[in-house]
């Protein structure tokens, strides 16, 4: 799986309020954008890795966060190596790694319920402008929940495609995936109503 999924725990990092974690994540992003000496992102990366240690996350979890980015990081690093020199390479590449790992740490140590509670609080002032905070927070939860469902549907369609000898047909992949996704969305809508969405 290429995205961080909540892993329950009782460490200090897990127990920190979700709002504080999101604030620290935003502060990290701002700091990385503002700081301009090459070694400063390295220090922040050290802090983030220390937090992974404190959260007792295994090394393979850290690597799993970075694996999807490897080619991007290599390309960006190579570009800056040619155009700007090694200090710029360290600055840019480490900045990206730090941001991804920091965001991953929040996802790994914070449940969706805690995150949606923060989101509800953040969105509450928009209530007067017609935004429904609870629906918006639910929408985000459902988006996260739907990623593995759509991935499984895509795998089923791909398998069916191979079984029928249509391995190279994008249309034979896209159409059934779209139909199945829409069916899933309809069933999910029914389930939400049945489970008290309108309470």
């Amino acid at each position, binding site marked *: 799986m290429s995205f961080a999924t909540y892993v329950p725990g009782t460490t200090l990092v897990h127990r920190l309020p979700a709002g504080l974690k999101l604030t620290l994540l935003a502060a990290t992003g701002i700091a990385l954008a503002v700081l301009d000496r090459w070694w400063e992102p390295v220090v922040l990366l050290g802090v983030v890795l220390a937090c992974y240690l404190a959260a007792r996350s295994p090394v393979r979890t850290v690597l799993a966060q970075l694996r999807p980015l490897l080619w991007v990081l290599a390309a960006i690093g190579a570009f800056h190596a040619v155009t700007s020199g090694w200090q710029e390479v360290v600055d840019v590449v480490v900045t990206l790694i730090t941001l991804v790992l920091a965001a991953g740490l929040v996802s790994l140590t914070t449940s969706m*319920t805690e995150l949606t509670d923060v989101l509800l609080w953040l969105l509450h002032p928009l209530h007067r402008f017609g935004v429904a905070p609870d629906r918006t927070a639910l929408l985000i939860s*459902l988006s996260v929940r739907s990623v593995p469902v759509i991935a499984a549907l895509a795998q089923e369609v791909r398998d069916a495609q191979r079984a029928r000898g249509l391995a190279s047909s994008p249309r034979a992949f896209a159409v059934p995936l779209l139909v199945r996704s829409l069916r899933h969305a309809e069933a999910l809508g029914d389930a939400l109503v049945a*489970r008290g969405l309108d309470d």
Partner: protein
Amino acid sequence: MPLIDVICVSHSYPSGNGRRPVLSDVSVALSEQRIGIIGANGSGKSTFARLLNGLVLPDSGQVQVDGHDTRHDGRAVRRLVGFCFTDPDAQIVMPTVREDVGFGLRRRGLAPVEIAARVDRALARFGLADCADHPSHLLSGGQKQLLALAAVLVTEPALLIMDEPTTLLDLRNAEVVGRIVADLPQQVILLTHHLNLLDGFDRVLVFDEGRLACDDVPALASEHYRQLVR
């Protein structure tokens, strides 16, 4: 026990330029503890089940649950009626098992301590305590169906409707679900193709081409169904 009153209900779905009738003039009152519904695919039984909690509103006629009209008081009806779908993946809405079981309770505005206690009890009851914090999409098919059941029953509905809950399960998990259903204190309406699950039920309705073709004890209703599909 909530009394379900279905009065002269007809319903149809859009089809091409017209509408395809799925239920025609169905009237029935249901107050028994265990009620089974059987019928061929497309016979109208799933639409009938969805009428009972207001997911589908009838084109004509009226459905009342414990005196609440599904058309005008759907929210009150859905608090009384829990609904378990065939495919648990469509019913699981939160990323982890614990969060999904707590979803319905959070929507009702219960205190976090009360929610946590009720969720823990439900997880223990359905044998899901060990995977409480697991991602829900990584559960097995049987565990997903148990999660779907736990998530519905944690809200303590007076009536549980189950739309073919064992269709996607293997024999072992189907038997587990069957045993859980048999022990529930709630009124249960079970739609199924597994006729053995209806042993001991009080009443079984057989649907055929949108009409209530038979309303009898399980043995006679099952026999009627077998004759219909021959």
